């Protein structure tokens, strides 16, 4: 009796309200792609505005009457676009795809479990995330438009409905959407941590887990510990907005000629609470991408990961440090210079474990037999992006240079490398790598390579160029890049940046076509098309309900490639040790 026959359920139970971790993972992944369409679409509108700030665009005006008036993007809507692009990308695309999507799909398959520890909670987590998405999208259709206070939602801008147009209903929906997202993400993290600690199969010790699982584990712990700070901040912000309290609102605020009644609060408090989550959130997103890169580099390089254990220790150190460096986002807020000094030192200290990770990724390629599958291409390019993003981070983590670069396009370029390129490439590498296991079919490699090259050329050019805009003094969130004369020598870069990003956006169309075409029409996949050693490849593709007929036992680490010159060139984790000669005889 096949696993499918055992698991005959209605369409709704199987594809909508499923408790199967693989289905939930795919649901998250597809939801992330869907939200990504919006987020990328908004960024295209932003880039059009920055490339041609004074152009008249009657077509866009007709397509988006709420955003454009007489062919011109409304300045307040520009701020909404920037805010929502950031929010949706960080929380609803990257978190969904990398952490919730791959996390749900791969953790039980990697550690030899039949499902998550709490399958129903898992389903609940997804169906809490869906209304969060709806609230975010809906905020574009309320009076005064979507939230416009930036993805960081700093008060007083975000706390006073009368402050900016987007601070009305849009900001309230933003806060409610984030509250639902946090609830959903916490349920997911709780599930991940418990599953990894409690449901590993026989022989799967912590130090035999693939690095993807390790990174997801650390991300989940960070999520459990860091997200509550944002919950607290969001509750207090909601009360400031609608309950008349003054947690974040100082006295003497004048809006529209009227002195407000609020007094005594401090907006800086919100910044601290926000970044107490906000900084770990970066690592919540970046670490799983790096974990995927390790797995992909090992499989497509046919070499064991270099320094498996040091990588784990480096990841743990990064996890701890990420919780105590949030102040480096606030150097210009007037903090005590001694405090700034501490945050600088702690931040720059993170480069040490990060250098260990980067070094181990590169060393894993030493004498490797590289197979340039799209997954491998994305993983390799990610190493370059980690390097570039990390170098920019040194400038920004040092208080003295950050004073100049703060709130400039240097920051925009930097964080787009770290939580834009690194994470997106992690999503793509993971998708190309696990596609056969997800859908039982192979994804087209030629289209994948076109996708890779177009994306890479576009994003690397654009985000490197943004660093130079920032060095030239261009401020982020500026509606009209020609507004300041002193930046005229660099703002011409906006046009090539936009063109590069349009190229990268067009590449995503190729990706989506490839994804859905291959899902239905691709070549059938065998159980282990990549000759990979980890557990998920010991079960048929697509993986059946409950994953294995009999749970596998694990006898070795996850990366035994070409270690002893065997014909197959790898040893799966389920292969037992050879008995000594006297036993064989």
């Amino acid at each position, binding site marked *: 009796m096949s696993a499918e026959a055992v698991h005959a359920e209605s369409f709704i139970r199987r594809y909508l309200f499923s408790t199967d971790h693989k289905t939930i993972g795919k649901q998250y992944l597809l939801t992330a792609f869907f939200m990504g369409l919006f987020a990328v679409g908004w960024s295209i509108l932003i880039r059009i505005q920055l490339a041609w700030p004074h152009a008249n665009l009657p077509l866009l005006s007709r397509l988006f009457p709420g955003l454009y008036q007489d062919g011109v993007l409304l300045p307040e809507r520009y701020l909404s676009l920037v805010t929502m692009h950031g929010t949706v990308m960080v929380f609803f695309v990257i978190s969904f795809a990398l952490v919730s999507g791959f996390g749900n799909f791969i953790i039980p398959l990697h550690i030899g479990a039949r499902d998550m520890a709490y399958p129903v909670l898992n389903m609940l987590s997804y169906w809490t995330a869906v209304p969060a998405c709806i609230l975010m999208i809906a905020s574009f259709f309320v009076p005064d438009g979507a939230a416009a206070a930036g993805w960081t939602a700093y008060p007083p801008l975000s706390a006073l409905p009368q402050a900016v147009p987007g601070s009305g209903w849009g900001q309230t929906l933003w806060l409610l959407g984030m509250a639902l997202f946090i609830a959903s993400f916490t349920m997911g993290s*709780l599930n991940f941590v418990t599953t990894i600690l*409690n449901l590993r199969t*026989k022989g799967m010790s912590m130090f035999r887990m693939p690095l993807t699982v390790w990174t997801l584990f650390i991300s989940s712990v960070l999520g459990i510990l860091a997200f509550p700070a944002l919950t607290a901040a969001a509750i207090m912000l909601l009360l400031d907005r609608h309950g008349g309290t003054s*947690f974040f609102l100082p006295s003497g605020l004048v809006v529209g000629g009227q002195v407000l009644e609020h007094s*005594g609060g401090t907006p800086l408090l919100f910044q601290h609470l926000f970044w107490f989550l906000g900084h770990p959130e970066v690592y919540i997103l970046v670490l799983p991408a790096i974990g995927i890169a390790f797995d992909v580099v090992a499989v497509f390089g046919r070499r064991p990961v270099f320094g498996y254990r040091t990588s784990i220790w480096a990841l743990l150190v990064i996890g701890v440090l990420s919780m105590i460096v949030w102040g480096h986002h606030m150097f210009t807020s007037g903090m005590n210079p001694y405090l700034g000094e501490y945050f600088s030192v702690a931040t720059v200290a993170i480069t040490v474990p990060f250098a260990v990770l980067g070094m181990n990724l590169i060393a894993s390629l030493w004498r490797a037999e590289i197979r340039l599958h799209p997954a491998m291409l994305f993983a390799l390019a990610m190493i370059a992006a980690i390097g570039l993003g990390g170098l920019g981070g040194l400038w920004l983590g040092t208080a003295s240079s950050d004073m100049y670069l703060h709130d400039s396009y240097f920051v925009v370029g930097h964080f787009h490398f770290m939580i834009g390129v690194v994470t997106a490439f992690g999503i793509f590498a993971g998708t190309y790598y696990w596609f056969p296991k997800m859908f039982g079919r192979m994804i087209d490699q030629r289209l994948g390579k076109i996708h890779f090259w177009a994306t890479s050329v576009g994003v690397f050019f654009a985000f490197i160029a943004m660093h130079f805009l920032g060095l030239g003094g261009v401020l982020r969130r500026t509606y009209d890049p020609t507004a300041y004369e002193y930046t005229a020598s660099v703002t011409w870069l906006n046009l090539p940046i936009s063109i590069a990003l349009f190229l990268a956006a067009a590449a995503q169309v190729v990706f989506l076509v490839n994804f859905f075409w291959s899902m239905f029409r691709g070549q059938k996949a065998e159980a282990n098309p990549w000759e990979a050693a980890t557990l998920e490849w010991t079960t048929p593709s697509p993986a059946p309900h409950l994953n294995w007929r009999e749970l596998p036992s694990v006898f070795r680490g996850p990366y035994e490639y070409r270690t002893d010159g065997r014909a197959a060139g790898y040893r799966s984790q389920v292969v037992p*040790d050879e008995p000594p000669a006297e036993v064989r005889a």
Partner: protein
Amino acid sequence: MTVGSMALERFPMPPRPAEARPPYAMGLVAIIASVTMLFVAFTAALLIRRTAPDWVPIDLPGILWWNTGVILASSLTMEFSRRAIRRGATALAERWTAGAFGLGVVFLGGQTAAWLVLVEKGVFLPSSPYASFFYLLSAVHGCHLIGGLVALGWCWRKLRAGAYGAFGHRGLGHAAIYWHFVGGLWLYVFFMLGAL
């Protein structure tokens, strides 16, 4: 006996607990960690906010002392229930659990009464930063306490159905731990509001 199985016998499985352990304890740890961090964040906010010149403590209603006693008694009652089920005294455990649940409801009622006392005095959420924090913290604590009540109610049903015995009452044990946690959380909140 095949060669493979011989080899397995001679070279036993790697040194790792074989069968998956039940995940509930870990889930409880994660929940408590998360709620703790939430209140750490609120504490940080309170410590910063109280440095502003408009921070003037108000007289908290005296009923809060009674409420504190009630929640402590409830914690104790739940502990009796756990001790009882350990001895296998199901009927007794059922009664103690019901008592803990009842005291929890009384506590919530008392908290509401404290709010009403303040409202009577004209102290509302936006009246002063101290009042804001009192309403905020007691409300958030109350929400987590309601979660505990759901857990206790669920245990009570299981006890009535005879699902728990001396050697199988994990759910009740975990519910009791969470219940002690939210009880302690109230002590912390009350101390923080009173002492600072």
